[in-house]
């Protein structure tokens, strides 16, 4: 199939899809409408369980099982990246030359790194109250660590990043999620049902039953997963070299 024919095919398919989309969009409820039956029920359920952030309540309480699936997707994809980006037999590690970074940038990195770690933890801890949650905070924390690569070099990053610990932390966090779910089963209700803990006072850190626990587990899982993921990519981009051009 040559390029021209493929382009024609894409144009045809695109036009068909566009027509179908337009037809479907004209039949959708108008934008900004007032009828959201599921949304209203979800808000009521969240308020009943004293969770201030309804989105966290939906993700970690009503749809907790889906979030388990999502977490496993993340875990599996990190596993896939680790396998795909491992060091092959015909490659060797070359120590990169130390980078020469301007002092202001280095100072900025050293100054902002702890602040960013703190912000990430804040976003995780307040996931059930204000916007945020395990995923967002985890990514912020993990990205913060990589300021060290930007402010210094890869060697400096490797010194504060025991990779094995992060891999273990990743697995541990996923199992913590599952264990929290199983605890509900042992207590005589359904898997991941939020009946185990008291719902607490509305709009405090301990409100929402198991929501904060699951949130923290996901936060840890995401932070560790992103660190491991970026470590593999950095290894490939910076350290690993092929022995000879094939």
């Amino acid at each position, binding site marked *: 199939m040559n390029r021209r024919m493929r382009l024609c095919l894409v144009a045809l398919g695109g036009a068909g899809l566009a027509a179908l989309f337009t037809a479907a969009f004209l039949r959708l409820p108008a934008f900004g409408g007032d009828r959201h039956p599921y949304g209203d029920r979800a808000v009521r359920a969240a308020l009943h369980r004293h969770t201030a952030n309804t989105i966290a309540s939906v993700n970690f309480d009503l749809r907790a099982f889906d979030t388990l699936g999502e977490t496993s997707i993340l875990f599996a994809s990190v596993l896939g990246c680790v396998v795909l980006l491992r060091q092959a037999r015909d490659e060797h590690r*070359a120590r990169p030359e130390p*980078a020469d*970074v*301007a002092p202001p940038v280095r100072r900025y990195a050293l100054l*902002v790194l702890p602040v960013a770690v703190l912000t990430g933890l804040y*976003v995780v801890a307040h996931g059930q109250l204000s916007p945020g949650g395990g995923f967002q905070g985890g990514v*912020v924390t993990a990205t913060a660590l990589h300021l060290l690569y930007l*402010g210094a070099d890869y060697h400096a990053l490797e010194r504060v990043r025991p990779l094995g610990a992060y891999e273990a932390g990743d697995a541990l966090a996923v199992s913590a999620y599952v264990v929290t779910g199983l605890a509900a089963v042992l207590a005589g209700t359904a898997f991941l049902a939020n009946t185990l803990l008291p719902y607490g006072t509305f709009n405090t850190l301990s409100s929402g039953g198991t929501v904060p626990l699951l949130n923290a587990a996901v936060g840890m899982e995401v932070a560790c997963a992103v660190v491991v993921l970026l470590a593999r990519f950095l290894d490939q981009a910076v350290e690993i070299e092929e022995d000879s051009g094939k």
Partner: protein
Amino acid sequence: MNGWLLAAAVVLTGGLGAALWGVATGPLRRRAVAQNLATVLAGSGLLLLAQGYDRPSYLDLALVLALLGPVGTLVFARLLADDLAADPPRARAATWATVGVAAATVAAVCAATGPGRAMGKLLVTGALLIGGNLIASRALSGGFGGVRGG
């Protein structure tokens, strides 16, 4: 639609629109500068939106953007250092104009909030946004001299 939202609309249409044009066309150095300025303008826009919707909790977005936006620019400055070194970006006027917009936004929102912890959070966000932007533009114009393998 109150004044804050109107101001946000102006900042986003004018500033972010221009930054978008800059990032989509032209040589690499202009794109990198425009990407840096886009994060600052979006940060100011988010501050104005949080004030306009009267939701202090939306400030977390501006805070995270103020932290991660400069990090993103530093990523580009680091990994495109070889391409940028041949043709270093110089955009003093644009950078200072954007910083001015951000500072004015922070000052206005602070004045509307009044003293207290919320104002402290605003000031931290503003300082991170402006400081990060200045450092990032410094890094773009040759902060990573001679980065080879590292």
